């Protein structure tokens, strides 16, 4: 099945920033800079969730943003994976138990990979995207199994 390896080589990422302090976002951009150059693995940031394979979410999610995040997730075509970058998204981080937040992101949409850190290093983010490949390939296999 040569087809399935396509995700391993071409992965388009959509970046949704919730109530982020911009720290994690800067680290995501750092992954695209000459030092780390994620594009050499075929990883690319895209501007529309419709083009994306992976949703990258940063920051704790405020009440207003929860339904929007859900809509972004639903707009992505299958197969898809979600990565949460930063402590705020994984657990609430600094803002743990705040009355303004709807809790960790995995209570809103299914999350596949967590990247803890405040902010995490770009290597960790690239590693997380690599882990998301595995999920996408598994999903694609399941989809093909259903068709047959």
């Amino acid at each position, binding site marked *: 099945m040569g087809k399935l390896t396509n995700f391993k080589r071409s992965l388009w990422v959509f970046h949704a920033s919730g109530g982020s302090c911009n720290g994690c976002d800067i680290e995501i951009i750092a992954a695209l800079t000459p030092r780390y150059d994620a594009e050499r693995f075929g990883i690319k940031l895209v501007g529309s969730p419709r083009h994306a394979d992976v949703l990258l979410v940063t920051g704790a999610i405020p009440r207003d943003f929860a339904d929007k995040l859900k809509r972004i997730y639903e707009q992505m*075509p299958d197969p898809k994976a979600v990565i949460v970058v930063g402590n705020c998204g994984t657990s609430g981080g600094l803002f743990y138990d705040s009355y303004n937040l709807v809790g960790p992101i995995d209570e809103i949409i299914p999350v596949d990979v967590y990247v803890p850190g405040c902010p995490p290093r770009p290597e960790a983010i690239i590693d997380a995207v690599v882990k998301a490949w595995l999920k996408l390939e598994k999903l694609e296999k399941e989809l093909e199994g259903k068709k047959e």
Partner: protein
Amino acid sequence: MTPETIFYAVAFPILGIFLGLTYKGIDRRISARMTSRIGPPIRQPFWDVGKLLLKETVVPENAVKWLFNAMPILAFASSMTLLLYIPFGVLRAPLEGYGDLIVILYLLTLQSLAMAVGGFASGSPFSSVGAQREMVLMMSYEMPLATVIVGFALLYKSFSLTTIASTPVWTMVSPVAGIGVLLLFVALLVVTPAELAKLPFDIAEAETEIAEGMLAEYSGRNLALFYLSDAVRGFAMAALEVVLFIPFTFSYVFGVSLSGTTLYIVEGLWFLFKVLIIYIAAVTVVRTSFGRFRIEQASRIFWVHVNLIALLGLALVWLGV
């Protein structure tokens, strides 16, 4: 329908897709090297298309479904047809005699038009904004593009691309007309990134401000078709410029006489090399060096500056003839 026609009909799309995607890969690689990155492998666009074909194809709820699904096919078909009109070096164009520069002008427009209609049909505000910008941009760059083609018609007294390809333009012009042709070349080089929707004129697909614009709602197979048509059109546009402005053959430049299969192989590679040079000069270097213009800036650039250059070129060609 001769066997030759059927062979062309099958071989050319495959060759076109292969070359288009390869040139796109080279373009991405060189662009990365220019910004001191390593860049993706040359085969990256092939993997991108392969992946897009695996993805689900979503049709938005408030889209006009048949238009939304038809436009990627129309865009793909028009850029494929465009390729059939362009003579490959010494190889003659498969559809030679069935159309000329005017048809090429229409086919180039049709692809952008298909994207704009697809954008309007998506029913998304981002796509509508993108489509409107594309229409404005098209109205701006069509005038210089048409001027270039009129200039060539004036020189050759013919719109046929075969006539133009058979005699290099530089050998049949007076010095005055030569300057005119040079100005037309400059105008066409500036039009190229706009025609191909590349930076600094990718205003209609600005991914950071209007979420990829016209393509915002496209996914899966439809997006793959747009991706392919974009790649093929990039190659075809550069090839068109080579046919018009640098038609010198390998044997003409280096003074070697070749024959048989060697001739076709060497001239074919030489043609691809020339196309690559034009592609890098007009697309890669420009898109890496510049930021995106605003739509009214782009309009002014085409209506005032590029138009002025093109019309001056046309006037000189007219004087020279």
